[in-house]
């Protein structure tokens, strides 16, 4: 064993969890070893930039503090270099003095689309080893894989080459072709029709552009989902639980095929890598690893049950043990024609059962409960391990009930209570989605009845000189699970979450502050009905009509309105513009001057009676701040006269007039949905206003394009669709209902 003295190592995946730890260990404990990192450029930051950012991570703190910042910088300058490039491109040239290559790069996710998984885990391996071969040297290749490449199986898995017949070239070619094929499929009429129908249901009222955009979004989602399915199912059909393990297994095959006989190859297969036991400091972890979201979810009380076997083994291994093992393997090249295999896990000699984990997690959160945002502490559930089937049934029932409830709420009237219910359902759905995702992803891992032997790795550990075992040892048997979980791992992963759940939950409904903008460069655009007034087109019409008609004419008018109501409602459901067109036919034959008189003497106050005083105050505040106030409405212009004084610009429907009487047609198409957004953009251009600094207020989902056109949208008394959207975009939601007279009172005061 050489201890890598004076060696030059190429490390891939250096920015990942294991990669960071490997780099730290080499820097801090192998003073004569040089490292070259292969780092891809990401966005505008080059590989070198990424190294600079990387070195600021907490993993290097202990080392930097021990040697001093200057010495650390000097060591990096002297011993670390970066190759900034993408594998597979021929321009990448590797150094020709490498003694070892540690290939630790991998996909992060367990269920990426099939082509992504193959690109990284198979093609990446091909490209790397081809590039190494091109240097003409024969360094020791340490190929980091995963214990789970063994696939879905039961019993004992030895440390040797995988036993399967999958042909990596065929699978790689198929995976590459999959995207093209799915892209083709996604353009088939059937798929597009469904996407379009879905989009229309949700966005139809907003207008054709929004519908088209939503349909395309759905198609792209569909493609991604299909590719994920391709991956998962192909993996399962060949005996692997997911595309991650499948491609990692093929990656091993690539390595064996390319390197056996040419270079020494060692395959390191860690199990589930978790926070460090001791180095660089106890509890170091970078982001959440596989089991952590589950542990946190449990601590937050949202994991009522889980499909695991109580006696199943969760093969967890601290990252510093994996690092030590990998570096020890790197220092021990096997013969060129005899690749070596090592399992790095705890299941074989120091197993942690799933029940043990649950007891331990429960113990931890009972003793150190998570704060519940100013409401005391969160209570954790007890798991009964009812088995995968029961859990699946629970999930399915929950999902069905939820989807029915959500649909029902979308067509329920909008009020504070239904909005509250919507919030509750959204929370429930988040929980269920979470459960679904993890039970699908990790089901196999938690139901595993498999043991990965680690006798070869143990032999390697025992071969270490006695003085090195303390700092460089990797015997999983030394882990005291109770200590590790309670004192090291749980505190580490819950630390950030504690901060997040400690603060009192505040709603995001505060209105945006109004910045003073005296030159009219800022617009505040308001919808009328539902936003500024509680009334609607039908109500306003009816009041006008009843004020105008003698009492004897009321029953006939009301009866006619009721008779036609289904038609109006149907039109409204289809398209707001169509409804307006249909409805204004009722004005046919009415006298223009008469209506204006009626508005001046009677109806003006009716509109004010039904107004939301808070809305009017908000308009006035915008005016006071020097903003340009704009009213956009489908209501007939005469009828909005009473509040027109509040606005610099009023855009309303204009009725066509023939010989002083209304013809029942509109003068121009009504401004609804995205036509409003288009109008606003043009208006902003004409007056030289900045829409990103502007404000928009609307109540209905059809106002969405208008609200999205401005930088500060506010959902006012939103309908369920808009509420859902506003919540997802974190738009402020205003409830402007106070002091508005109910419709009955307004009718009585106006018409009687």
């Amino acid at each position, binding site marked *: 064993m050489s201890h890598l003295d004076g060696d030059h190592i190429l490390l891939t995946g250096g920015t990942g969890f294991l990669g960071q730890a490997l780099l730290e260990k080499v820097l801090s404990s192998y003073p004569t070893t040089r490292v070259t990192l292969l780092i891809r450029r990401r966005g505008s930051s080059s590989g070198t930039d990424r190294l600079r950012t990387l070195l600021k991570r907490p993993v290097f703190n202990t080392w930097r503090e021990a040697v001093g910042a200057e010495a650390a910088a000097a060591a990096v300058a002297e011993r670390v270099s970066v190759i900034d490039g993408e594998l597979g491109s021929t321009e990448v040239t590797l150094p020709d003095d490498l003694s070892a290559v540690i290939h630790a790069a991998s996909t992060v996710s367990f269920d990426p689309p099939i082509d992504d998984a193959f690109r990284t885990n198979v093609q990446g391996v091909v490209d790397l080893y081809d590039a190494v071969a091109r240097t003409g040297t024969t360094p020791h290749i340490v190929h980091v894989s995963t214990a789970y490449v063994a696939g879905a199986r039961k019993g004992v898995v030895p440390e040797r080459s995988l036993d399967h017949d999958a042909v990596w070239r065929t699978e790689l070619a198929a995976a590459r072709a999959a995207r093209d094929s799915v892209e083709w499929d996604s353009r088939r009429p059937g798929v597009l029709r469904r996407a379009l129908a879905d989009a229309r249901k949700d966005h139809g009222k907003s207008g054709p552009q929004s519908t088209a955009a939503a349909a395309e979004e759905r198609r792209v989602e569909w493609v991604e989902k299909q590719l994920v399915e391709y991956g998962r199912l192909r993996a399962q059909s060949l005996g692997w639980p997911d595309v991650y393990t499948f491609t990692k297994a093929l990656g091993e095959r690539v390595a064996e095929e390319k390197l056996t006989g040419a270079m020494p190859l060692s395959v390191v297969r860690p199990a589930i890598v978790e926070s460090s036991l001791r180095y660089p400091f106890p509890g170091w972890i970078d982001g959440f690893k596989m089991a952590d979201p589950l542990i946190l979810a449990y601590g937050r009380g949202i994991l009522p049950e889980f499909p695991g076997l109580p006696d199943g083994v969760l093969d967890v291994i601290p990252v510093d043990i994996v690092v030590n093992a990998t570096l020890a393997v790197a220092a021990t090249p096997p013969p060129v024609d005899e690749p070596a295999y090592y399992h790095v896990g705890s299941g074989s000699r120091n197993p942690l059962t799933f029940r043990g984990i649950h007891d331990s997690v429960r113990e931890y959160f009972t003793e150190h409960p998570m704060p519940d945002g100013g409401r005391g502490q969160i209570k954790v559930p007890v798991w009964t391990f009812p088995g995968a089937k029961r859990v699946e049934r629970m999930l399915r029932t929950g999902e069905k009930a939820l989807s029915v409830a959500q649909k029902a709420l979308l067509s329920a009237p909008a009020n504070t209570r239904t909005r509250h219910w919507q919030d509750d359902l959204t929370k429930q759905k988040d929980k269920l989605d979470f459960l679904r995702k993890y039970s699908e992803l990790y089901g196999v891992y938690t139901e595993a009845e498999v043991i990965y032997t680690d006798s070869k790795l143990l032999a390697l550990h025992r071969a270490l000189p006695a003085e090195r075992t303390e700092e460089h040892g990797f015997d999983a048997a030394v882990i005291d699970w109770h200590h590790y979980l309670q004192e090291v791992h749980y505190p580490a992963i819950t630390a950030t979450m504690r901060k997040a759940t400690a603060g009192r939950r505040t709603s995001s409904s505060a209105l945006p502050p109004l910045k003073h903008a005296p030159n009219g460069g800022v617009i505040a655009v308001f919808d009328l009905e539902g936003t500024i007034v509680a009334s609607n087109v039908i109500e306003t019409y009816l009041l006008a009509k009843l004020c105008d008609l003698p009492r004897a004419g009321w029953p006939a008018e009301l009866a006619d309105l009721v008779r036609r109501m289904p038609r109006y409602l149907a039109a409204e459901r289809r398209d707001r513009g169509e409804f307006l067109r249909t409805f204004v036919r009722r004005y046919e034959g009415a006298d223009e001057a008469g209506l204006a008189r009626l508005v001046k003497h009677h109806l003006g106050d009716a509109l004010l009676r039904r107004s939301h005083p808070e809305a009017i105050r908000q308009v006035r505040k915008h005016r006071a701040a020097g903003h340009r106030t704009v009213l956009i409405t489908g209501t007939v212009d005469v009828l909005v006269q009473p509040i027109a004084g509040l606005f610099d610009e009023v855009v309303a429907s204009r009725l066509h007039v023939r010989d002083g009487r209304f013809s029942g047609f509109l003068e121009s198409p009504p401004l609804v949905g995205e036509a409003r957004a288009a109008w606003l953009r043009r208006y902003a251009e004409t007056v030289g206003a900045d829409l990103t600094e502007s404000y928009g207020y609307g109540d209905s989902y059809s106002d969405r394009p208008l609200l999205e056109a401005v930088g500060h949208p506010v959902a006012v008394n939103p309908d369920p669709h808009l509420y859902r959207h506003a919540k997802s975009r974190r738009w402020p939601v205003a409830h402007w209902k106070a*002091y508005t*007279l*109910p419709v009955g009172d307004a009718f009585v005061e106006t018409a009687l």
Partner: protein
Amino acid sequence: MSRPGFVLEVDERTPALLMHEGEGFRLEKLPLGSRVIYPPESLPGLRDLDARIRHALANPLGREPLHELLRPGMRLTIVFDDLSIPLPPMRTPDIRQRIIEQVLELAAAKGVDDVELIAGNALHRRMTPAELKRTVGERVFRSFFPRHLRNHDAEDKANLTEIGQTRHGEVVEINRRAAESDLIVYVNVSLTAMSGGPKSVSVGLASYRSLKHHHNVHTLRHSKSFNDPPNSAMHHSYNRMAGLLDESVNIFQIETTVNNDTFPDYVGFLNKREWEWNLKDQASYLAVKRANDLAPPKQRRQIWHRTAAPYGVTSVTAGDPIQVHEVTTRHVLRQQLTEVDGPADIGIFGLPYICPYNVNSIMNPILVMSLGLGYFFNLYRGQPIVRPGGVAIYYHPVRNEFHPVHHPSYIDFFEEVLAETTDPVAIETKFEEQFATDPWYIHLYRNSYAYHGVHPLYMWYWGAHAMEHLGDVIFVGGNRKTTERMGFRSASTLDDALEMARERVGRSPSINYLHAPPLTMADVR
């Protein structure tokens, strides 16, 4: 002969006493030794009212008879008090209608063609056509509305004229049509000692420029009380303005007073002293109370607002404003004044459902404040019924409700201004100009039926004297949020309120309860 007012001292035999609380009432047992101030019994109304009016017009004080003041070709303007008095509104025909009809008959007989009728509503909301019709009667309404029967518009710059300034520099600016008339006939109803006389034209037809000289914190803090004109800085200002007006306009004042028949027969017990309730009164109390409590708030309000008072008219006096007003004030005091032997540590007031500014509308928290700390607190002569630093306990639910059309600036005042400060001086300094000149409020005052933007601030000033005088203000049954916003406290029962009050006034406080309405004015020695 009606019995005079008196002060009852609560003893073991005293029954529970009636307490108004918004659109409701209750019987409340007061602590032993509490003093209850009752008004004189309702005076008899005048019989043959039309003849009395005719007589007053023909025999005015300090003026020629009205028919001698009228001549063809003259400009005659009849101004009348708006719907803020009397409270509750009187049964039709309204006394104003009866008087106006006779004035118009005389004018017609004399060949006067140029006649205008103007409601003296100052910064109050315009009266609706229906309200105008109810006040002046169908006949007058039909002949004059809308062109010659109008509301005064205090923001119509073209139709305002500045008469001049008093020696204190107070601008007198009134309705141009009235100012340029050969004769103004002012038709008044004096419900309290504060109204009528010099106030009629100088306030009813004025603009904000003119009103701000007496409707301010300083003046109101020096009006002790504003129902006692000789000791009211506000009335001193009115007098100066009226003096100036007297030099340039010719006013023929017709004033009337009403008796204490405030409530109709079916709630007749509200007009009576509790221990004199007969079986019928007790039964109707139980029935009305139960029905009222069961009715939804909206219906309850509508029913109360539809209730008109069967007032009897106790005097009709015409002629020179100053001389007429002396007679009028005597009649008001004769009906309302009760002598009280000194103030108490605690004053109790039951606030009814109506005040001058919520006729056919909603009593919002600001109006409750001005009714309690303004009108009721100031129903005194000499000194308040509560000692300085004492506690006032009011009964009212103080619901968080506003009429969006009638009181738009009240809503903003409540939500924005009171959230910042409740100090009248701070409010006056920082917000008055903004509220008074806001174009949107002005638009609503002129074109809709809104009180002027500055009106809620005036309401707040109305209570400035009480706020300075009192150590604490507690609302029994008051909405916690709204009372707190206004800087007051709320208690769920009288016992709790008294317990809270004791913190300030000691363990065994003396108590005065002003038993009103019907209106009672305390003459505190």
